[in-house]
């Protein structure tokens, strides 16, 4: 009876050793490769997703580039009538012509400041001032107001900001009226 029990115990030990052997073979020879395969697959999937996203982005940028080129062409068409040289060259000339039609010939047009236009990349806003000496305010004010009112219509690039016709006279016994306006200029 005891010999039979000892034989049964030995059998179990042998089975356990066999199982341990199988596990060891798996752990040593197969498991590392399965792990490596899993790592490569994960890396492949991850990289694949990144490449897909990058290709999508590339296509999107290509489309945006095409659209930007069309937008640029549209802008060029809309600005076709405007001189190509800087506004500092032609705006004062046009203002002079315009005011000349209303009887004002002696005045100074200058750029006071420039500022970026955040909502419109590639453009800057030029702030101008026109100082018009008035010898007789009460007689000339009407014409000046009409000239300023029509300036915006005559020159679509010009936006009037303010006008000041003060009562006081300067050393030359003249009232100096100041008109400020702004224009948008392309910088790119």
């Amino acid at each position, binding site marked *: 009876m005891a010999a039979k029990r000892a034989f049964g115990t030995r059998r179990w030990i042998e089975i356990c050793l066999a199982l341990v052997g199988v596990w060891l073979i798996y752990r040593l020879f197969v498991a590392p*490769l399965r792990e490596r395969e899993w790592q490569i697959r994960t890396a492949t999937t991850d990289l694949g997703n990144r490449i897909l996203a990058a290709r999508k982005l590339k296509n*999107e940028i290509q489309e945006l580039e095409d659209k930007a080129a069309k937008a640029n062409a549209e802008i060029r068409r809309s600005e076709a009538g405007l001189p190509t040289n800087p506004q500092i060259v032609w705006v004062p000339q046009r203002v002079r012509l315009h005011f000349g039609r209303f009887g004002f010939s002696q005045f100074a047009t200058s750029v006071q400041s420039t500022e970026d236009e955040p909502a419109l990349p590639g453009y800057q806003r030029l702030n101008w001032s026109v100082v018009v000496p008035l010898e007789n305010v009460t007689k000339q004010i009407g014409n000046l107001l009409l000239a300023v*009112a029509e300036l915006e219509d005559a020159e679509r690039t010009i936006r009037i900001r303010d006008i000041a016709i003060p009562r006081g006279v300067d050393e030359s016994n003249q009232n100096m009226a100041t008109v400020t306006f702004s224009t948008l200029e392309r910088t790119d």
Partner: protein
Amino acid sequence: MPPWLILSLSVAAVGVFCLEWRSVLMKRCDVLAAHLEGMERDWVAISRETKDAEAARNKYRALISRPKRLEEIRTAPRWAWILGIVAESCGEAIELQDLHARQMTGVARACELQADGVAFGLGARANADRFRQRIEQELQEGLRGVPVKVGFLRLEDESDPSAALSTEQRIAFEVVATVGMKDPAVFKPSTYH
């Protein structure tokens, strides 16, 4: 067959199976690694092309929106035509002496105009008020739905002594017009007469 032999053969069979499996796995890993290597080369190339993609995307989007934005700016309501109305409303009984007008920022069409002048002739006060009314009427017609207010800040006999010698009635006034402002500060009770 003795049981130890069966066990040994079983373990050996499992060992052979595992070795075979290992060989299959190694081949598969090699193929996958080669594929990954190819993908990495692709990634290097594509990532170089899309390096500043985010900045480029923002730049192009801004460029695309430019015509619309430009059109908005160009067609935005203008206000200087109001000066023409003031000039045309003067008539012979009104003399303007100084004027300030400015566009108000932030609200489309909003502007404020302030003018000092003298009304004369018979019924000079009425002439001054007709001037005010004409401006108000013209602005209301030209700007339907936009708040317009035109009023006097001052309307009084002219204090100029040289003018007082004249028999003609002369009334000095200060008129203010506001456009696009719901509750203009200039007309607050402390200043408005």
